[in-house]
């Protein structure tokens, strides 16, 4: 539906139509789905009453797959075909994976993204994540016994454009309508902020299984403004486990070579680390090919061993505080998120860090595993138009600077990190040689001066520049980052009007055709009669669109000329007639025609609505 309805901000245009929207935390170790029911966000359990879904997918013979607990149970024995922590491979090349050698997978480097060779062929993190998301989607549809309107999916704040795109693609592959990608720490703050009704400046310290994020937010009258964000996209609880596993091998003079051994050891290390949260002493016990491994570990030993990792999180924290340029005594609290923040050493270090800055509360009262999904559910509910007053608003930032390559492999930054999104920025460049008719534009993301040290996002060319002397052409490169944090870039030679445009999208081997194919094959429509469902959806959408158009015409019909009005009436009549029939393709086509035909009207109403709202504001101010 693309016709606009002007209603009170945040209120559903049709109060009887409640849309089911969920929040999904797609985690490195666990994933969850949550929804707002009766005004309260809650995590949705599976049939056994468990809310966590281990982010594990096992590929068996044929087309069989195991997902979640079932897959995790076989992780050790079938490590090479059981993908854990796939999030760490999202939008990454093989060269990006520091611990690839320690992992039990047969990695295959591909353009755009690394894949793992399994019994069912090459699988990228996008496909693995889609399995997990589809499972959660099914869980949500089962609990509401209805279809989903859409989902808010969370990503680490420090995810770059490639990782965000990959996450969005995975959701699409799972048949989810993505209402918004939001940053995990921001989601956590939402869950806390609404609970506590707090105002002021908060930090979120989010140490997950595979990523570390830190964000600073200002809460003010329902507006959640991210002031600065930072972190380390390759640092998490898993790394603590890796260190512990390596140490145990070293202590015992043993080796873990086979994929099974590596998998089993990693799991044993996690169990041991978790045990050391409540106990001062634990034994790492793990069956290996050449006999059992048993090593005693004290909490103190673990803490000494992993102190460098903890220090890395504190360095990131310091950097964000500096970026934010806010007085430190303004800080009110720090929200702890992620299972790894249960480690006593982590809580102690964060408390000490802020202890130096004054009185800052360390908030741990919402379950750190659930808080991100709960926050995402709150945002999903608001975006679906279900929130009562619509006073909540998220203003997020881009985590990493965006720029383009200039002469000598240097980066010219165009959008600085921590700029509030959505944002559009443009910069002019010129040609280097006389008669130059094309310009290569290389889009990069990162904070370093050299292109080689930044992440390459896209390359495209502006061709057909009229030949001119060097330095005369004016090439305007525009960056636009939308509210999901996703980038599109365009370039235009302003004298001649020659244009080029690219939506930055990583190419990891999945074309749109393939995505459609995969959607058809399994993920999205596993249940129900597709044709009937499509017809029902088409009719509901058509009714909604007709209703909205009628009320829009009633309210603002005078914005239209007689001719435009007649054209819209004809489109409505046609849709009304078809909607009584059985042909869902024809209904959709007519609905699309009406939506298209009313687009300008919608834009005019929207602009008027906003102008009036803002004018009202100005008078209030006086």
């Amino acid at each position, binding site marked *: 539906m693309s016709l606009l309805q002007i209603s009170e901000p945040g209120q559903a245009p049709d109060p009887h139509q409640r849309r089911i929207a969920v929040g999904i935390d797609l985690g490195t170790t666990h994933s969850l789905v949550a929804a707002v029911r009766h005004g309260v966000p809650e995590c949705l359990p599976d049939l056994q009453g468990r809310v966590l879904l281990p982010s594990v997918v096992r590929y068996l013979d044929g087309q069989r797959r195991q997902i979640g607990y079932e897959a995790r149970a076989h992780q050790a024995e079938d490590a090479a075909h059981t993908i854990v922590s796939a999030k760490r491979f999202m939008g990454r090349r093989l060269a990006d994976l520091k611990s690839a050698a320690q992992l039990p997978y047969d990695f295959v480097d591909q353009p755009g993204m690394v894949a793992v060779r399994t019994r069912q062929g090459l699988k990228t993190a996008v496909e693995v994540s889609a399995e997990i998301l589809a499972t959660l989607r099914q869980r949500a549809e089962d609990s509401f016994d209805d279809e989903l309107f859409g989902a808010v999916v969370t990503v680490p704040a420090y995810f770059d454009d490639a990782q965000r795109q990959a996450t969005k693609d995975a959701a699409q592959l799972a048949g989810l309508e993505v209402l918004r990608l939001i940053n995990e720490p921001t989601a956590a703050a939402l869950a806390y902020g609404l609970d506590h009704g707090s105002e002021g400046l908060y930090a979120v310290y989010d140490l997950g299984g595979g990523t570390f994020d830190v964000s600073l937010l200002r809460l003010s009258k329902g507006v959640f403004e991210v002031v600065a964000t930072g972190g380390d996209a390759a640092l998490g609880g898993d790394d603590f486990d890796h260190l512990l596993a390596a140490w145990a091998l070293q202590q015992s003079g043993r080796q873990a070579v086979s994929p099974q051994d590596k998998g089993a050891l990693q799991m044993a290390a996690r169990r041991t680390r978790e045990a050391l949260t409540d106990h001062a002493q634990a034994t790492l016990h793990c069956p290996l090919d050449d006999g059992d491994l048993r090593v005693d570990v004290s909490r103190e030993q673990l803490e000494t061993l992993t102190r460098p990792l903890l220090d890395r999180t504190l360095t990131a924290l310091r950097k964000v505080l500096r970026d934010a340029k806010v007085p430190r005594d303004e800080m009110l609290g720090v929200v702890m998120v992620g299972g790894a923040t249960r480690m006593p050493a982590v809580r102690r270090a964060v408390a000490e860090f802020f202890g130096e800055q004054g009185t800052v509360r360390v908030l741990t009262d919402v379950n750190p595993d659930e808080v991100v999904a709960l926050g995402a559910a709150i945002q999903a509910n608001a975006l679906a138009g279900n929130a009562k007053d619509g006073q909540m608003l998220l203003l997020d930032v881009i985590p990493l600077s965006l720029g383009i390559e200039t002469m000598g492999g240097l980066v010219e930054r165009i959008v600085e990190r921590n700029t509030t999104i959505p944002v559009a920025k443009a910069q002019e460049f010129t040609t280097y040689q006389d008669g130059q008719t094309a310009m290569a534009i290389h889009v990069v993301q990162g904070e370093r001066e050299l292109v080689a040290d930044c992440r390459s996002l896209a390359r495209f060319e502006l061709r057909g520049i009229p030949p001119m002397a060097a330095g005369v052409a004016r090439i305007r490169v525009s960056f636009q980052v939308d509210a999901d944090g996703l980038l599109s870039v365009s370039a235009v030679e302003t004298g001649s009007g020659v244009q080029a445009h690219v939506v930055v999208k990583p190419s990891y081997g999945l074309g749109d055709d393939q995505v459609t194919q995969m959607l058809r094959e399994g993920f999205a429509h596993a249940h129900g009669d597709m044709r009937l469902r499509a017809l029902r959806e088409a009719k509901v959408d058509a009714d909604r669109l007709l209703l909205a158009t009628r009320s829009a015409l009633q309210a603002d019909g005078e914005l239209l000329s007689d001719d435009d009005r007649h054209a819209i009436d004809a489109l409505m009549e046609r849709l009304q007639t078809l909607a009584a029939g059985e042909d869902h393709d024809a209904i959709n086509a007519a609905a699309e025609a009406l939506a298209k035909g009313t687009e300008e009207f919608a834009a005019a109403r929207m602009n008027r609505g*906003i102008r009036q709202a803002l004018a009202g504001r100005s008078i209030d101010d006086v």
Partner: protein
Amino acid sequence: MNIDDDDFTLFALPERFALDAQQLDRRWRELQAEVHPDRFAAQGAAAQRIAMQWSVRVNQAYQRLKDPLKRAAYLCERRGAPIEAERNTAMPREFLLQQMAWREALDEASDGASVQALVNQVAEHEQGLLQRLRALLDEQGDAAAAAAQVRALMFVARFRNDLDDRLESLEQ
């Protein structure tokens, strides 16, 4: 209120350099609360597109007004004295000597404390320049002199960035 109004009109602020930062922040949040695409999330593509344009425009104005240098440059330009830093590179002699002295001090600084001392010194100097800039724009109405002052402050800002980078590298 129109999307192509100037920044000050959009934010309902007087067109001058001196500015109440809290009022600016509050007004920004109010404006975004009206125009952000999330406010129209359930209302289709046309609404999203228009809301995005407004939201981008509001953020652009906010970024420009919030940063004293960008705000001053914007005022100079509106008053017929564009900054054009790349074409006006001449700086007073004392200013250049000051810059050189700072650069040398940074090269010699070996620990966090000495860099921090330099940071404080530069910040104090910058405050003085900003005060003078305010007087040029709001009291004397001398846009050309203000533009020269902005160019000088751009050097200081760049040096301040170098100081931040150094502090960061010392921490790691």
